[in-house]
């Protein structure tokens, strides 16, 4: 019992050291620009279709689902504002982050895990390349910067989905729809949600890398690393979200 508790704390300590190392090494040259851009391409551009489809469906479904309740109150004209508000504040960041956790975190975990198992990481160290700098820093940085941009796309596409959803039942001009959305939004809705996504991105990358980097020897540990990366990343997204919303609520 005490041993397992100690193990848990040791893992958390290791992860903290791992996370701290990122902030130290990100400023230390050599900067792996080429690898960073490549990772950005894989993480950002390649995830876009997935995020776009999810965002569109979320906007559409959210509109259709909230419509009956608002109609009951005779507040159907508030539908665009409400959908945009819930999309931008909560749903688009969290759904996008979860999708990325599934797609990116598992990918990174499996990739680094297999590199670790096949001793490629050790080989890098031997050939005087810092594996942390080359593999981990580029991936975490790419994640941190790309997830917010994916969230912007999800917001925009979700709003278009909401427009389609509204036009299933009624007829609203697109310009009028956009005006209603802009009217209901404030900076307070956009800025905290955006800051939150950087943390999502950072934790998705960091957990994927940590799980992969610390995979034990053996082929099955690759699968385990990928699996636990997804689970931990998803869980951490919800925890970060809760903390972020509480902090926002506290200050504003």
């Amino acid at each position, binding site marked *: 019992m005490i041993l397992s508790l100690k193990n848990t704390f040791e893992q958390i300590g290791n992860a903290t050291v791992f996370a701290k190392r990122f902030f130290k090494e990100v400023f230390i040259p050599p900067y792996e620009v080429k690898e960073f851009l*490549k990772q950005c391409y894989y993480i950002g551009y390649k995830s876009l279709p997935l995020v776009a489809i999810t965002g569109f469906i979320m906007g559409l479904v959210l509109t259709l689902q909230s419509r009956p309740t608002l109609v009951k109150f005779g507040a159907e004209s508030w539908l665009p504002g409400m959908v945009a508000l819930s999309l931008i504040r909560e749903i688009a960041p969290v759904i996008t982050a979860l999708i990325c956790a599934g797609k990116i975190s598992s990918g990174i975990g499996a990739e680094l895990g297999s590199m670790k198992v096949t001793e490629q990481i050790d080989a890098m160290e031997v050939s005087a390349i810092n594996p942390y700098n080359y593999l981990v820093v580029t991936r975490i940085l790419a994640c941190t910067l790309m997830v917010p941009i994916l969230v912007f796309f999800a917001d925009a596409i979700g709003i278009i989905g909401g427009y389609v959803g509204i036009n299933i039942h009624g007829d609203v001009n697109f310009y009028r729809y956009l005006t209603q959305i802009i009217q209901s939004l404030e*900076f307070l809705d956009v800025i905290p949600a*955006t800051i939150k996504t950087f943390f999502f991105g950072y934790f998705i990358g960091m957990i994927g890398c940590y799980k992969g980097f610390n995979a034990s020897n053996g082929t099955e540990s690759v699968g385990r690393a990928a699996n636990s990366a997804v689970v931990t990343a998803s869980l951490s997204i919800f925890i970060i979200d809760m903390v972020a919303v509480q902090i926002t609520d506290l200050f504003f």
Partner: protein
Amino acid sequence: MEKQSGYTWKLGMFVTIGLLLFIMAIYFIGKQKNLFGSTFNITSQFKTVSGLEVGNNVRFSGINIGTVEEIRLINDSSVVVSMVIKDEVREFIKTDARASIGSDGLMGDKVLTISPGMKSQKSVENNGAIASIDGVEMADLMKSVKKSVDNIGVISDELAIFSHSMNNGNGALARLVRDDKMANSVSNTLSNLESGTKGFSENMEAAKSNFLFRGYFKKKEKEKEKKQEELKEKKEEQQEKAAKEKEAKAKEEKEKQEKAKEEKEKQEKQKAEDAKKDAEKK
């Protein structure tokens, strides 16, 4: 290198569009809050702002033209509200415009409304001040309602006393309402009064034909006739002659009528005496 350029342009496009979306959102929200574009400030002094908050809309002729920027107390009975307004509507807001605080719908936010003035032709200046109209406060409304309710209380008290005395008292009015005998005697009195006044009018007719008063009434008639003649003189002579003939006829007829009246008088005097006797019997 070729392989790299294969994905970098896609990555560049992805990042550019993503950031562009974000910047657009920020720009439009900022525009909504009047952060960009030229604006000007005006202030207005209120006794109370009834829950107006920073960021509430400012309306002019029903159009949103700006937002409330600051609300601050300057002493214990006045609040200065300063608002940011789009520069393009400045020419329409004159120096005698007035600000008032209303509410947007039943449950909506408070809205600061600027209503146009009547006389001034001068546009308001930047950082200028405009007058304010005090809105209808719930407390004031309640005060006036209380006053009229108090009055109603007094009135209903008196009404209760009045109706009580009507039902239970022995005053003339109460008896009139409740007592059948009283009602009958009143109706008899009224019928006597009626016949009495009839007799009186007959007396008057008699007086007219009496030789003592006849002169007086005839004078009156002659004056009337003279007036008519004067009117008719202005008309043609033929009509004048015809009128004179008519007058002559009229005189003859009157003399006949007077004779008839003398006969009637005698009859009616008898009737009046009969009525008096009836009343005395009752």
